[in-house]
C-alpha cells in the first residue's frame, strides 16, 4: 500500500529548492538514505530528464521521477517533495512542477497495487487538489489515507 512507502520520513516540503536537479536530489534523498536506491538511480533519473525526458511531467504540476529497476533500485520505495515556488523541469517553462514524486520500483510488473493506488490518487480531481493543497506530511498522509479507504 502507498502508506507503507509514503511516511513522515519520505514526504518532504521545501521552499528553497535550487532548480530541478536539486529537486530530484532532494526527493530521492530519503530513498538513498534508506538504501532503497543507489546513487546511480539518482543519476539515471537526472540524465533522462536532461535528455528531454519531461515525460515524467504527469500534468497538474506533478512529476513522477523514476527510472528503470536495473538502474539502481534495491528495494521498492516512494518519496515526495512539495516545492514552493514551482520548479521548471529541465528548465522548460512548459513544465512547471509543484510536486515531485520519486518512484523506485524493483521490477516492472510488481507492486501493481501500489502503483494503481498512486494512479487513483493522482487521477482523482478532488484528491489531487487536496494533495497539492497539503502543507505538512500529516496533511499528505491523510489524503493518502482517504484514497485508500475510498475503494
Amino acid at each position, binding site marked *: 500500500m502507498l502508506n507503507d512507502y509514503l511516511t513522515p520520513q519520505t514526504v518532504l516540503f521545501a521552499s528553497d529548492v535550487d532548480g530541478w536537479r536539486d529537486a530530484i536530489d532532494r526527493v530521492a534523498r530519503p530513498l538513498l538514505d534508506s538504501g532503497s536506491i543507489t546513487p546511480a538511480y539518482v543519476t539515471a533519473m537526472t540524465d*533522462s530528464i536532461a535528455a*528531454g*525526458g*519531461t*515525460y*515524467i*511531467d*504527469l*500534468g*497538474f504540476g*506533478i512529476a*513522477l521521477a*523514476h*527510472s*528503470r*529497476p536495473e538502474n539502481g533500485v534495491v528495494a521498492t520505495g516512494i518519496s515526495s517533495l512539495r516545492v514552493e515556488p514551482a520548479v521548471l523541469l529541465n528548465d522548460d517553462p512548459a513544465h512547471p512542477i509543484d510536486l515531485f514524486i520519486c*518512484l523506485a*520500483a524493483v521490477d*516492472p510488473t510488481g507492486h501493481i497495487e501500489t*502503483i*494503481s493506488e*498512486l*494512479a*487513483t490518487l*493522482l*487521477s*482523482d*480531481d478532488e484528491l*489531487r487538489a487536496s494533495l497539492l493543497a497539503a502543507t505538512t506530511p500529516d496533511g499528505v498522509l491523510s489524503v493518502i489515507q482517504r484514497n485508500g479507504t475510498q475503494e
Partner: protein
Amino acid sequence: MKFLAVCSSGLGSSFMVHMNIDKVLKELGVTGVDVDHADLGSVARGDADTIFVGSDLADSVGGLGEVVVLDSIIDMAELRVKVRETLAAKGVEIPAGDAA
C-alpha cells in the same frame, strides 16, 4: 483489440495510463479490449491497435501505428474522451455510452 500505453521507462507513466484506461473501459462497460503497457524501446509496429502516449513522446511513436496523444496522463476527463473516440472510430460498442 489491443491498447498499449507507452512511456520511456515502461513502468511509471505508462503503467498509470494502463490502469486508467482499464478504469475508463470498466466505466463504459466495454469488454474485449486488451490493455497493456510497455517502454518505447520494446514496442514494434503492429504490437497494438492503438498506442497511448504522453505528449512528450508524440514525435517518437509516429512509425508504430495509430497513436493517441495525452496532454496529461492523469487527467481522467481527457482520457475518457479520447478512449471513447478511439472505441467509436473502431466501431466498438459502448454499453454505458450514454451514461458515462
